[in-house]
């Protein structure tokens, strides 16, 4: 029996953060993970994260993972990989399968950070190869460098569905459609808009009826559902796809706290059966703590803060920090967590607002909620959209950020302070000054890729539109292609006049295209002429 002060089960964002926090205060920490690599889901996350500086916003997930791991190892945290915790017994004994044998450990405190598992839905043909979870698609693409297929039906329009949809396009797949049983897109509008402008159609109030194929998926039938979730006869559509990707939610992996005798609650808002925890993430069993999705589904940034809260509480419990420092840290972390939990997408606010108005009172875009893009007519009222008069004076950012989500890197990166969000990070960004340099830092740092630069003074009758671009191969300067509008509908020919890539922008190129001036407020995507099968 090997004893550690703290045993952490799961080396994902929550587990590593908890380990770091505890080790930084001087505790001796051991972390188990059943995978061959630590970092959990972070290493599959190639997109830039939302939030503010303290949440490491505008960093790509896998880079946050690398930092966490280095920090943990630097603090002397011991991480054992390929180690499956198979049981937890009285007095915090943990049985671990390591390779070909069992090892037995005991922790003075245990942190359970086992994360979540993907939900599946069953339909005729759902066991065919080619029906995969969105997480599996990410593992194939972003860990193993494999393309899951050629043409994908994405089931589920939450953030996972739309973000993985975008990554599938980056990997060279086509998305035939994103469907969702709900009448509104579940994820952030800005994530949906990224793929809508690449031509991906959204079918809301639709469900999958059947996967076709004998040896693997060769097609899918989707059908519209009425408000009672019953299929509408005659509304079936057949899609030619070879992959059906399921992004229909997550369930907490909470068997270990159940086995440890923690009181559980079945809470739909938390994704299912989770242990009852106090504000420091301690379960009803003394010295058994939780962190991250295993205690309730949120997202990686929240999981990291939850880990900090847990680690801080354990350091205090063991007498490694004084009351004042503990309280200060806890208040700081709780504040950061509350910021992420604010906004119109928080767990329970959708019913309150009915998804009709922003917190500032602007009417939300209906087309964004149902089709994934903003219509030009809805756009002009938002505070990030400069007036026609301002646009005629030269280059300006167009901030197409119209929903209250917790995010503010645009405010932080602007060297001229043109963009104001304020202390409440769910506020919509406001264009407040006219001294734009055209540097494009805001364009590349917006995790929602919702900021564009428009210069209507570029040439007589022509405007320059700068968009964030993350597809390969990167078109060369002078190359021709097609400018598409927010719905992905081709407007006509455009020429790439400038490409900017910098280390700071971390893979997000700034592509400036020359378009006729009447498309200045329409053209939001560039499709190179030479584009291959991937689209």
């Amino acid at each position: 029996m090997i004893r550690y002060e703290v045993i952490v089960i799961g080396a994902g964002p929550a587990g590593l953060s908890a380990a770091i926090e505890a080790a930084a205060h001087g505790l001796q920490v051991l972390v188990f993970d059943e995978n061959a690599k630590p970092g959990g889901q972070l290493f599959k996350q190639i997109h830039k994260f939302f939030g503010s500086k303290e949440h490491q916003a505008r960093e790509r997930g896998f880079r946050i993972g690398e930092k966490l791991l280095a920090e943990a190892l630097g603090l002397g945290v011991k991480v054992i990989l390929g180690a499956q915790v198979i049981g937890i017994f009285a007095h915090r004994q943990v049985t671990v399968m390591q390779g070909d044998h069992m090892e037995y450990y005991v922790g003075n405190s245990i942190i359970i950070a086992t994360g979540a598992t993907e939900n599946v839905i069953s339909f005729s043909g759902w066991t065919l190869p080619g029906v995969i979870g969105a997480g599996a698609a990410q593992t194939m693409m972003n860990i193993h460098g494999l393309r899951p297929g050629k043409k994908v039906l994405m089931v589920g329009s939450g953030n996972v569905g739309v973000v993985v949809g975008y990554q599938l396009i980056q990997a060279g797949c086509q998305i035939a459609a994103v469907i969702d049983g709900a009448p509104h897109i579940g994820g952030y509008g800005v994530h949906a808009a990224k793929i809508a402008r690449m031509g991906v159609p959204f079918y809301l109030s639709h469900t999958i009826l059947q996967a076709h194929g004998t040896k693997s998926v060769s097609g899918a039938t989707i059908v519209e559902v009425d408000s009672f979730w019953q299929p509408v006869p005659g509304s079936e559509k057949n899609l030619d796809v070879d992959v059906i990707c399921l992004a229909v939610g997550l369930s907490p992996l909470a068997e270990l706290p159940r086995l440890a005798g923690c009181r559980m609650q079945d809470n739909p808002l938390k994704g299912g059966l989770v242990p009852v925890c106090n504000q420091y993430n301690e379960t009803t069993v003394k010295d058994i703590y939780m962190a991250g999705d295993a205690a309730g589904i949120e997202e990686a940034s929240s999981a990291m803060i939850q880990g900090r809260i847990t680690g801080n509480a354990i350091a205090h419990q063991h007498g490694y920090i004084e009351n004042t420092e503990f309280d200060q840290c806890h208040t700081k972390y709780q504040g950061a967590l509350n910021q992420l939990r604010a906004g119109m997408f928080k767990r329970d606010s959708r019913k309150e607002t009915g998804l009709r108005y922003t917190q500032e009172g602007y009417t939300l875009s209906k087309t964004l909620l149902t089709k994934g893009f903003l219509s030009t007519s809805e756009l002009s009222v938002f505070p990030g959209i400069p007036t026609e008069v301002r646009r005629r004076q030269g280059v300006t950012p167009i901030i197409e950020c119209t929903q209250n989500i917790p995010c503010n890197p645009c405010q932080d990166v602007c060297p001229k302070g043109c963009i104001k969000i304020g202390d409440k990070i769910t506020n919509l960004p406001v264009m407040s000054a006219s001294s734009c340099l055209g540097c494009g830092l805001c364009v590349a740092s917006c995790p929602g890729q919702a900021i564009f630069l428009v210069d209507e003074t570029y040439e007589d009758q022509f405007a320059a539109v700068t968009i964030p671009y993350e597809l390969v191969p990167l078109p060369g300067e002078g190359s021709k292609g097609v400018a598409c509008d927010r719905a992905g509908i081709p407007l006509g020919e455009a020429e790439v006049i400038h490409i900017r890539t910098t280390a700071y922008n971390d893979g997000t190129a700034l592509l400036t295209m020359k378009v006729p001036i009447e498309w200045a407020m329409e053209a939001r995507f560039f499709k190179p002429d030479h584009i291959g099968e991937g689209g």
Partner: protein
Amino acid sequence: MKECVIRRTAAKEPFMAKLEDSMIVCRCEEITKGEIRQAVYDGMMTMNEVKRYLRTGMGLCQGQSCSRKVRDIIAEEMSVPRETIEISSARNPIRPVPMSIYANDKACKRR
């Protein structure tokens, strides 16, 4: 085996087959929706009972994929809200363990 099970509630009506009965719900153990519906008809009223009757959730993934679906089917068949159907119990080991590991276990050998 099924004949040996005493019906907990007298069936008022014969079992009605449904179109999607042939659909597999528990992939690891290859159990169909029809079998689960039949189990409920036969008197299995909780997830644990269905599990012991059919082996749903006892395969490689230990119910990670199917347990929600099984719960929904039981709830639907019994016409009760899904929350009233208790989730099946968790047991050590929570991951499949090869018997060779237990056979060679230091802690066991000492005894």
